[in-house]
């Protein structure tokens, strides 16, 4: 069997990293960063945590290329969803004929 078995050591490391990430994001939330940096810091930590879960807990790092393509397609679709919808909503006030 060519299946890759992730060693326990890696699972424990990821678990600790996720707990530290949770503690960090709570602490960072009480700090008043300038501009939108509170959101940026929180999302950076969340994306990092999610990436660790996907790569190691979900074994994607050791999965076939096809799985990577599927996940890439999902992220690409999310980018379309956000980019097109937000650009629509945020440009609506530009129209002087806006009603309601």
């Amino acid at each position: 069997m060519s299946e890759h078995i992730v060693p326990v050591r890696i699972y424990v490391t990821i678990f600790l990293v996720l707990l530290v990430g949770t503690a960090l994001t709570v602490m960072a939330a009480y700090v008043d960063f300038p501009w939108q940096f509170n959101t940026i810091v929180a999302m950076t930590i969340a994306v990092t945590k999610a990436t660790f879960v996907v790569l190691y807990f979900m074994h994607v790092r050791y999965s076939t290329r096809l799985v990577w393509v599927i996940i890439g397609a999902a992220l690409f679709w999310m980018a379309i969803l956000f980019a097109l919808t937000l650009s629509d909503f945020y440009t609506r006030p530009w129209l002087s004929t806006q009603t309601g």
Partner: protein
Amino acid sequence: MSSHATTADEAQHGHPALQHHFENMEQQREAGTLGMWVFLVTEIMFFGGMFLAYTLYRSFYPAAFASASNHLDITLGAVNTGVLIFSSFTMAMAVYCTQVGKQRPQVVCLALTLILGLTFLGIKAVEYKSKWDDHLIPGRLFPGNPYNPTVAQHGDPDPHKLHLLEGATVEKVQMFYWIYFAMTGMHALHMIIGAGLITYLLIFSMKGRFDPEYHSPVEVIGLYWHFVDIVWIFLFPLLYLLGRHLEHG
């Protein structure tokens, strides 16, 4: 000669769990994993729509979202995040134990995962109850809502109970709670389904159904469980933590 024939026969038919339309166990397992990922893509699309709604309304009503978020219990939220991460860890360990063929630790890991999942749901229920008691359910009971008959009767809307930040209104705060209950509710529903799936795994792992050759159900349900964990990893900072730095005193 006869023992040789048995080996050849086994090589041809393989594991009892091998379905006839797959070449071998490895191909069957990879197909199962891929199928689960395709399902998870539909889940990403589903939750993606709600995250989009959240993003839009938060950018429209930043002050109201920060005010409303400050009424959520950050301690319970953080503890629940830890509980869910722990359950993801035990789920990953359950997959590991199955892969290396340790049946008893596998049962223990699955049982722990189930208990932690139910703990998460219990804490969530406590949080929902306190929102109910505080009248933070969107609709007629919302504090300060002028349409609330109780408020109209006594003439005491207690407008400061919400500690509204500048620019926030009760209506806009309600929008946060609609989104909060929709997103955490859908997440909780996924947890309930996940708890059911892990119960199934637990029963069959006690019967010794899974082994290093055949463990796709454990692996695939593990993927689902980790996905639900990831959704919460995003929900926690987005719902609980957005207004804390604006709180003074």
